[in-house]
């Protein structure tokens, strides 16, 4: 689009479709709604004057508003930028600085994993963190792994794209993100195994944190540094014809969209990388269905409640995991009625936002209570941790179920 997100406010007809879809406005009257803090207030914002914008701080950045707007108003982008501007002006708290850097925390935590994990589940410590920093004591913080994905899968690490050898399978670069690197390397390993089983040759290119938590907390300059580094590191692989596949829907959204639309990165390199990024199920449904159909999928006779993360829906590719999951014999799939589970990345971790975040997820948690699924499935790590904690049901990445059906241990 040739006009920036702020100027898409022009397209707004004030119809309130976004307001009625917003999961945060639905649970709290502290938030006037995306239309109000987005295109409506945008008309009162001046690039060189401070704008009073406290209401916009309640926006969780979930992306539902942009997605449902029929006119193309970039509501989420307007709000995220306004939140960033607000944070920049008012100063960013130590808490936000910390939770915006999962890679930094990860590197530290992996080194001291058992101790760090014990500390983080200690209720007294958690209470102290809530009082001192404002990290909600209820918020599920993931456990650090004792070793990183890249170390465990060193054979797959590639600093540069290798020349294609015939017969080796389609080369695919896997963007693991912080969660698979520091917290859940087994997810990364499953992704590699699944892709290999579908005939791909998977490499782990150089990469860093996607930067989305930095962006969500208003640290735009830092986010841009991470973004540029990722783009530079990934581009050679893209230029060599490799798709970039990721299993974390927030990382892949950042690479596909946020770098340009919110952080304002421009140029051929950024857009080439963006065009080459795929969510893993998107990749499978677009390119690997023939292979998948040839494979034998084992029966998984359970009831699973699938909650597509709001960030996945913002990809505007639908919910490709459903197409694949529907191929698993005897699997009963129920679809979440909730727009958002509530955590919205780091939003639900904040003590002042935690109740709102829980209320947002209420639809999903109530539905889980009503349908009693054996499992809940969701493609984003922060969603999984949050849902498992609040719904009290084991929550997996759909990849884990697919791996099971493919008899991948």
């Amino acid at each position: 689009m040739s006009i920036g997100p702020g100027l898409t406010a022009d397209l707004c007809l004030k119809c309130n479709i976004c307001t009625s879809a917003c999961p945060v406005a639905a649970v709290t009257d502290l938030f006037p709604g995306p239309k109000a803090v987005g295109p409506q207030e945008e008309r009162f914002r001046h690039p060189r004057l401070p704008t009073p914008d406290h209401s916009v701080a309640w926006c969780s950045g979930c992306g539902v508003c942009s997605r449902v707007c029929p006119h193309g108003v970039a509501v989420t982008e307007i709000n995220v930028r306004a939140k960033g501007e607000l944070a920049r002006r008012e100063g960013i708290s130590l808490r936000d600085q910390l939770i915006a850097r999962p890679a930094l925390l990860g590197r530290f935590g992996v080194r001291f994993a058992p101790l760090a994990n014990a500390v983080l589940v200690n209720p007294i410590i958690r209470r102290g963190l809530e009082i001192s920093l404002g990290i909600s004591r209820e918020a599920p913080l993931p456990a650090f792994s004792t070793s990183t994905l890249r170390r465990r899968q060193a054979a797959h690490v590639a600093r540069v794209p290798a020349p294609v050898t015939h017969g080796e399978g389609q080369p695919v670069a896997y963007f693991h993100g912080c969660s698979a690197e520091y917290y859940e390397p087994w997810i990364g390993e499953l992704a590699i195994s699944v892709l290999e089983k579908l005939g791909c040759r998977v490499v782990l290119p150089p990469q860093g944190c996607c930067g989305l938590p930095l962006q969500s907390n208003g640290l735009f300059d830092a986010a841009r540094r991470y973004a540029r580094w990722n783009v530079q590191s990934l581009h050679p692989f893209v230029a060599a014809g490799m798709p970039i596949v990721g299993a974390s829907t927030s990382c892949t959204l950042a690479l596909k969209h946020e770098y340009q639309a919110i952080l304002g990165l421009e140029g051929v390199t950024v857009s080439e990388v963006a065009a080459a990024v795929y969510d893993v199920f998107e990749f499978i449904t677009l390119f690997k269905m023939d292979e998948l159909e040839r494979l034998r999928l084992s029966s998984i006779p359970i009831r699973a409640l699938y909650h597509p993360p709001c960030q996945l829906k913002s990809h505007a590719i639908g919910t490709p995991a459903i197409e694949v999951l529907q191929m698993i014999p005897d699997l009963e799939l129920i679809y979440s009625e909730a727009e958002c589970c509530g955590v919205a990345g780091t939003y639900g971790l904040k003590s002042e936002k935690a109740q709102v975040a829980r209320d947002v997820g209420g639809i999903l948690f109530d539905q889980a209570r009503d349908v009693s699924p054996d499992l809940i499935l969701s493609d984003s790590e922060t969603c999984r941790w949050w849902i498992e904690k609040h719904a009290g049901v084991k929550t997996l990445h759909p990849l884990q179920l697919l791996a099971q059906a493919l008899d991948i241990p």
Partner: protein
Amino acid sequence: MTDLLIVGQGFTGLFAAVLAAQRGARTTLIAAGRGGLSLSHGCIDVRRGGASPNDLRALPADHPYRIADPAGLPDALAAFHVISAKAGLVYRGALGEDLRLTTALGGIHTTCLAPESLARGRLEDTLPTTIGDIEGYRDFSAELAVRNLARAGIEVVRSVSLPLIGEAPRRDLYAHDLALRFDDPDWRTELARAWKPRLGGVRRLGVPAVLGLRHHPEAIDSLEERLDLRLFEIPTLPPTVPGLRLERALRQTALTAGVRLIEGARAVGLIDGRRGGRRVSGVVAQSAGGPRSYPSPAVLLATGGVLHGGLVARQNGRIQESVFDLPVTHPGARGLLTSESAFGSQPFAKLGLRLDRRMRPLSESGGPFFENLYAAGGVLAGSDRAIEGTRQGIDILTAHRAVECALGEGSA
């Protein structure tokens, strides 16, 4: 793999998707956003001024009802009844009978089918009526409604102002905010206690349509019981809850029936030039990472009129169909697109795609532009739906007929 690709998530697109999926077609629905259901009263307007078979057959040949064959209307409406009832929304009324409801302004809305909670307020029913508004809620005024109804000779006993319980909200509430509160049974109980004293002697009470969103029939039924009167709803400014309820119901039904829904993706047409240019091969739609192709043997355009961009008016007076740039006849000069009266008929509202008998947009030469491209709903020419009161009837009938034609095509 898709058998039918539908573009547009308004009433037409959603209804068509449900029909197609229920007929066993693998259906994909792509939409730039959500449609206009939350901007509507949730009723099915078929035609102000008469919707008998004779009335409809007497319409001009290029009217959407004529194109889609008015004889199909009973079946189409029956299909709607089944779908809505299964989703928990009961509709009252019948084809050929007028159902007259009051509006928030005290005007008269003449419709064919109305949801139960609205239909309970039909003006044909002479039970004495009170209209109540909710204190602090800016989108509905009982007094304004009563004044105008009285001026039209419709007697309403009185207007009453009803309190909202709990802490004063920290911002203005929309209809759906209130409706979500009404979903809570405990809240309803307490509210009924607060309302009862002000409703002494009231037999029938009309209130803004906010009585529950997700737990709707229960909300109004339980309130009726507690207040011991007949309760009905009147639609308010958008987001209009009866329309939202219908939209939710259709979306859930579509998803459960296996429709693949891709939301947030604006479409441009994909034409396979290699096969002679007489067929479309699908659409290309924007996604976060760039364009994605969605091939399909049949495409149904349900992109609507000028409201949501199915048709776009240019400064030079041209009207453009936004996905395939299909021909749209227009008067030429920009000034001829509109008329002076804000409440009268508007030339632009009648512009759109002309179709053949199989619901396919026509080319200038008179044949279908593409063999496998269909259209339904607001993108069609021939009716100023706001003035004629034909909006949802056209959506339903044209969707029904277009799905028939599109799937019939697939089996060839």
